[in-house]
């Protein structure tokens, strides 16, 4: 018998949970202002998530998925991208979307039940939030194919969850990316849970990163609560893809400290003790500890940052709440590039219904017809 294939999966850890270094810093991270930028983005994301959950609880927002504890995955990934790359998020990557220029008010608009939130002012080629799990991975392959066909030095970056790795769509996209050597990087945000289903019930494989091997591409695991490591590892994968060397999978191990969404109660299926233990590993405290240790951060700066980010979130919430509701024509005017003649009657009917609903609301003072 001869061995014809074997593999090894590496894991990268730079910043330990206590804020000390497990490995040397990458060169870019020697600049404290770079780290402060990442820190700020994670803090802003957490404040946004907290506010979004509060808005939902008080009936001013729809169901929403917090990224509490996973901020480093999203922020580190986005920070590794160039503006001209294309990002394809699932539904927990607000940290990355904000970094790339989507506004808080736009995120709230979407989760508040208004599609206009997906027509954001920022990265116009980025894909909207993808709710059907894993179905955007093939889109990333398509975007990457477009880059390859046009010989553009750009990369499609897609984030999927640990649960999503069980979907055929995701494997199929990875398989193609391997065969066509596409400039596509997938970050697997392994937060250990898919609603109530633990990572161990999704796959018998030791890592999710090793799924790359079967597709003929490199797979690497990174401590997803270490924003420095995430940015470094994803950046290497992206630059490799940009230079024509093909796709990669980065498994970022993290932990979902929040409920799955505001519609979930995680205490039904996991122990509080597990969650408390994981709080000790969360990404923001460790970077703060590191910055403080380096003399690059202190209480004053922390307070100033919190005040500034809180103001930013509050202003966005005000703008969101003040936004006039979408006109009913919104639901039909963008279905086709040009409204087919045959649908003109339906457009009129939509407007009629909307007017009747408004009238009824005015009459009985209730929100519902």
């Amino acid at each position: 018998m001869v061995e014809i294939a074997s593999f090894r999966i590496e894991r990268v850890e730079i910043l330990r949970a206590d804020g000390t270094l497990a490995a040397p810093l990458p060169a870019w991270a020697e600049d404290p202002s770079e780290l402060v930028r990442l820190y700020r983005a994670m803090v802003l994301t957490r404040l946004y998530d907290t506010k979004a959950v509060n808005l939902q609880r008080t009936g001013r927002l729809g169901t929403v998925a917090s990224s509490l504890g996973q901020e480093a995955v999203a922020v580190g990934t986005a920070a590794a991208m160039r503006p001209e790359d294309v990002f394809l998020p699932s539904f927990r990557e607000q940290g990355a979307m904000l970094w790339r220029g989507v506004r808080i008010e736009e995120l709230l608009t979407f989760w508040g039940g208004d599609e206009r939130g997906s027509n954001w002012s920022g990265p116009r080629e980025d894909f909207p939030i993808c709710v059907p799990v894993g179905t955007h991975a093939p889109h990333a392959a398509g975007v990457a194919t477009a880059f390859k066909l046009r010989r553009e030095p750009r990369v499609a970056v897609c984030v999927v969850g640990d649960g999503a790795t069980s979907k055929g769509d995701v494997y199929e996209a990875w398989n193609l990316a391997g065969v066509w050597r596409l400039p596509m990087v997938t970050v697997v945000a392994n937060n250990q849970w898919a609603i109530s289903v633990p990572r161990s019930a999704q796959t018998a494989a030791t890592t999710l990163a090793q799924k790359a091997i079967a597709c003929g591409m490199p797979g690497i695991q990174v401590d997803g609560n270490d924003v420095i490591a995430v940015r470094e590892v994803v950046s290497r994968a992206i630059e490799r893809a940009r230079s024509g060397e093909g796709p990669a999978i980065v498994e970022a191990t993290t932990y979902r400290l929040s409920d799955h969404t505001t519609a979930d109660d995680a205490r039904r299926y996991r122990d509080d003790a597990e969650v408390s233990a994981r709080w000790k590993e969360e990404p923001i405290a460790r970077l703060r500890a590191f910055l403080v240790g380096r003399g690059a951060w202190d209480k004053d700066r922390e307070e100033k940052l919190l005040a500034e980010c809180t103001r930013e979130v509050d202003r966005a919430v005000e703008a969101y709440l003040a936004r006039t509701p979408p006109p009913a024509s919104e639901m039909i005017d963008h279905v086709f590039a040009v409204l087919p003649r045959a649908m003109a009657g339906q457009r009129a009917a939509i407007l009629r219904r909307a007017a009747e609903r408004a009238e009824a609301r005015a009459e009985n003072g209730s929100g519902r017809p």
Partner: protein
Amino acid sequence: MSALTLVEAVRTALARAMEEDPTVLVLGEDVGKDGGVFRATEGLFERFGPERVLDTPLSEALFTGLAVGLGAQGFRPVVEFQFDGFMYPALDQLVNHAGRLRARTRGRLGCPIVLRAPYGGGIRAPEHHSESPEAFFAHVPGVRTVIPSSPAKAYGLLLAAIRDPDPVVFLEPKRIYRAFREEVADDGTALPLDRAFLLREGRDLTLVAWGAMIPLCLKAAERLAEEGVSAELVDVATLKPLDTGTILDSVAKTGRCVIVHEAPPSYGPGAEIAALLASEGLFSLLAPVARVTGFDVPTPLPKLEDVFLPALADVLAACRAALVHR
């Protein structure tokens, strides 16, 4: 007898079916310890154990095909889809396999599976969580599509679906999962599939609906009664195969028909029923057949959901328009 909500009736029927038949399995995402996102399978894992209640990896295409294999082996898998919008991967398995396994093998292999899903709008849910995909499923040969409209219907029809030897798509109107209670005797009595239910008798007009549109149409019928109009209400319940007789008989009596559904109008179930009336009930019609539906647009997010979903005023307006023709 106890007064159950629709989702409790589903749970009660599942437990009853599992109790009486050891081949009944419950499969899906989060159906185990979590009890399903709507709690439809709550307590089943504790009661029947991990070999009867199985959390699968996250893949709808997988668990639909898995059910086909289990079904061919004599199990009766009941698969839960978390939401309507995640059912579309099931179409490949339904069209290419579940709906034709029996026919392809000339009866050698059957497919006694049930695909359950919460469906429809009205709960202000996120994108892809408020779809009405019944027409897709009703279009598949060899597959039944069943939609209960109340707790008692949910209990009886789900039991029938599980006991049926062929594939059933069972769509549960999530908007009325907890909207009201109804006395349900958990005595294992199934309701018939392939039969529409006459929920209210009337002379002037027939309302045809299913799912969450039934309570709405009942309200419409009551309102019309105050105006001296006597409306009959047909709960289709099994969309395919359609109980044409009950609908034709009703319209033969009333001469007017208003069909109400949430799904978009084009090629929807309302079109099938209207075609039935055009071809087999034309001479009893006193007014054009009317449809009150959603629109041919992707189900809008909550801010515009109220405009998309048929409401009482829309049903009443359609009825009054039909009544103009005397």
